[in-house]
């Protein structure tokens, strides 16, 4: 028997595609879920903190304190609420403000005394540590900025030795959506590549249709290709839709080329398909397959790929672990393609690794795909 007969391959792929089209759950996973993720990651989760409500307790009331208060209120990062300490404490407890600044009674006096610095106190809500850190950092910045402008106003030279001017390269406006979208493409492709295929093949085992196929004149290559081709098309289609929406609807920049995007996502999808098929041909039931794929592919893609959580701030052993994950390389490539362009120094190693994993997993799957039930 020929290794691949086009007639048989066509028949099997057609069957697979029909099943995809008729099963509402594949449509949901391939097109509804990605849209949902896009909306959630694009608008729901927002790691930027603009317009934080901040309290101000001005115990001084002198001219310097009023000027500082005005400066603070003018900042685009804070919405300032005035009040006395007990009131602000109560508001902080109720979550109405995220922190407050205390200007002590002798604030104006100390500011006018050139040899000393005036202390101000910042109280933040440590239960929301990200916001607390953010407020602390920005307060430092606002405080420094105010002192510099005040010094300029007074005709003094700045006592500050160095000044820091931060630029966010590649994402100049520091909009988190821009780097979350490449991350969500990774999640979507993992779900379609690994999750959906592992479930579909496991279902064939559970329902006994795999046994019927094995008893028919079908070769190993045909079995494998008939699963790969339809799901590859589905995964790439879903990726294209997501990328299109991201760029044209959500305004995420796209600085690389479509061809490179196609190449990178293809090798990644192939390695995910390999993982999905491998898991389901070993597990042979939907529950175990879903559990394994969740732990092997999906959760690492969410937590360790760098899609949402920054890899460089992970502990060293975990950081080392991320180097084994295909999703890490896709995230890095996608962020590069979307935000920077075709930077080959980044893309080449990523593509090389992803090609390696797809070859490895597909080869293992081919080994595990047999024409018998017991290998």
């Amino acid at each position, binding site marked *: *028997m020929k290794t691949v007969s086009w007639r048989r391959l066509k*028949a099997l792929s057609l069957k697979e595609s029909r*099943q995809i089209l008729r099963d509402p759950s594949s449509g949901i996973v391939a097109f509804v879920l990605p849209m949902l993720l896009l909306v959630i990651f694009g608008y729901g989760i927002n790691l930027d903190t603009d317009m934080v409500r901040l309290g101000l307790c001005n115990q001084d009331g002198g001219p310097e304190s009023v000027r500082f208060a005005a400066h603070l209120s003018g900042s685009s990062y804070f919405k300032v609420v005035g009040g006395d300490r007990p009131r602000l404490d109560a508001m902080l407890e109720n979550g109405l403000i995220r922190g407050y600044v205390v200007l002590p009674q002798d604030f104006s006096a100390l500011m006018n005394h050139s040899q000393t610095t005036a202390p101000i106190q910042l109280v933040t809500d440590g239960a929301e540590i990200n916001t607390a850190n953010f407020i602390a950092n920005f307060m430092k910045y606002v405080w420094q900025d105010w002192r510099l402008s005040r010094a300029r106003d007074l005709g003094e030279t700045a006592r500050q030795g160095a000044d820091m001017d931060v630029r966010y390269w590649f994402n100049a406006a520091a909009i988190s959506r821009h780097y979350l979208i490449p991350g969500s493409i990774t999640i979507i492709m993992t779900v379609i590549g690994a999750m959906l295929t592992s479930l579909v093949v496991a279902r064939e085992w559970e329902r*006994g249709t795999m*046994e019927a196929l094995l008893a028919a004149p079908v070769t190993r290559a045909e079995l494998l290709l008939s699963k790969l081709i339809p799901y590859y098309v589905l995964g790439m289609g879903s990726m294209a839709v997501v990328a299109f929406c991201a760029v044209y609807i959500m305004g995420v920049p796209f600085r690389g080329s479509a061809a490179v995007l196609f190449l990178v996502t293809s090798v990644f999808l192939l390695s995910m398909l390999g993982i999905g098929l491998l898991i389901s041909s070993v597990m042979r039931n939907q529950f175990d397959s879903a559990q394994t794929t969740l732990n092997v592919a999906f959760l690492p893609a969410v937590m360790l790929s760098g899609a949402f959580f920054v890899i460089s701030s992970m502990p060293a052993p975990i950081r080392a672990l991320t180097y084994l994950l295909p999703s890490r390389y896709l995230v890095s490539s996608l962020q590069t393609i979307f935000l920077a362009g075709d930077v080959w120094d980044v893309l080449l190693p990523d593509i090389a690794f992803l090609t390696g994993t797809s070859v490895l997993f597909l080869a293992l799957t081919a080994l595990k795909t047999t024409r018998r039930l*017991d290998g």
Partner: protein
Amino acid sequence: MSAAVVLSRLCKTFSGMKSPALDGISATIRSGIITGIVGPDGAGKTTLMRLMAGLLRKGAGDVAVLGLDPVDRTDELRLRVGYMPQKFGLYEDLSVIENLRLHADLRGLLGQERQATFARLLSFTDLHRFTDRMAGKLSGGMKQKLGLACALLGKPDLLLLDEPSVGVDPISRRELWRMVRELADGGMAVVWSTAYLEEAETCDEVILLHEGALLFSGRPADLTGRLAGRCLHLHGVEGRRRKALNRMLRLPEVADGAIQGHSLRVILREGAIRPAPGDLGLPGAPQWKEVTPRFEDAFIDLLGGGPGGESVLAASMPARQKNGADLIVAENLTKMFGDFAATDQVTFSVHQGEIFGLLGPNGAGKSTTFKMMCGLLKPTSGRAEVMGIDLRKSPAQARQRLGYMAQKFSLYGKLSVRQNLEFFSGVYGLSGGRQRAAVEGMIESFHLRPFLQVKTDDLSLGYKQRIALACSAMHEPDILFLDEPTSGVDPLTRREFWNHINGVVEKGVTVMVTTHFMDEAEYCDRIGLIHQGRLIALAPPDDLKKSVASKEMPDPTMEDAFIELILREGQA
């Protein structure tokens, strides 16, 4: 007639299993006849089918299919062997014609020949009206025919059907049998595996397996013939036939016995002399009558006779006052799922101390009716009462008084036997000393001591069944609900199970049971026949059989009665 398959000392052991799945099987399967591979669950039937289909590698010994090794010569054999796996192997989200086209493409059946084959198979299976229907929406019988059609596409020389009659109603089963008979007459070698021993009798030859070993191979009549003169009915027993059976089973001459309607069916040991009816000490004027031995009788005889008639479970139960009251009452009971009436206006009542059976094919609505009667499902309309408690109002209160054994036994597979017993006794409200005593009692009754620490997943089906019964009876309920309690279990364990049921009923417990084993219906005092949600007959088993007796069918079996009553219903 040539040999299609030759098995010689064939063995197969799966890794991780203690005993081999197949142990030295030698047999020949010939063309032009139907060969049955027969045995209870776990006997090794499916393993043997898969070895012949080339889906498993053999262990020691040899198997030759159409003269070839099924694993080395897979490519050739795939085209010459048709195989229908369990559950038919159909794609449920593809239509009838799409399933056929897929298999035709895979087998290279093209052009004119393809159109001709489709036409022939669709009319042969009577599926031409349903070509566009999704396979998942077909009835069990139609799925079975489509599975058969797919397996027949390549015009195979050998047709392997793995448990084709599971989940299929008796009428479709007969139809399939006729179709397969036609194929065999045309020269094909047909292999039909089944756990229903009565199906063995209609096969031309059988290979009888039990726990991986070959018990018999040859014509079924040769096996049942060994019992000639030893298979008897005892007529005219008055009064309590369960008590009479118990007494009979204690006689040294008796190998096995069962209740069959108003009579007792008894198998004597080889060489035993028939005891005089007068000496049996039974009330009434009992008389022996020789009957045709059945395959199941022969099977039990091969295994050295039945398990006797004692039930330690019943012995440990307190006797209940008999009052003959109606403990279970269903009146115009209806359950709708959307527009579909799963149970439609069903009315019956069950007296105290009675075994009441609900009989019907899969999907007829037995389980739905059953679940309403034990308060697990809320009826759409109608009345359901247990011991005077209205199940619509206070199902929980009623449930305390009854024991429920669910289909497939529903034990916790990852818990040990002891943990299961403790859990279920707790669920039924036992605690402290009473709970300990109940658990100990069940361990004694069912001889569970050696398995206390074993996970129930690792036990055989027979043991699971015993534990499930133990779990449902621990709180000494007045009513036992048993849902398909014996599916897939071997005949010996089934006998033992019925000993327990007969025993507890003698103690005044009321039993309501569902089954699709026609012969088991004979144990019941009264049977309700359920078909398409409706109760189409309600009577003692003998009356049901008598009602369909005719010139052509003077002595109908329960299955004959069942089919006849359903056909009559269709005409009405």
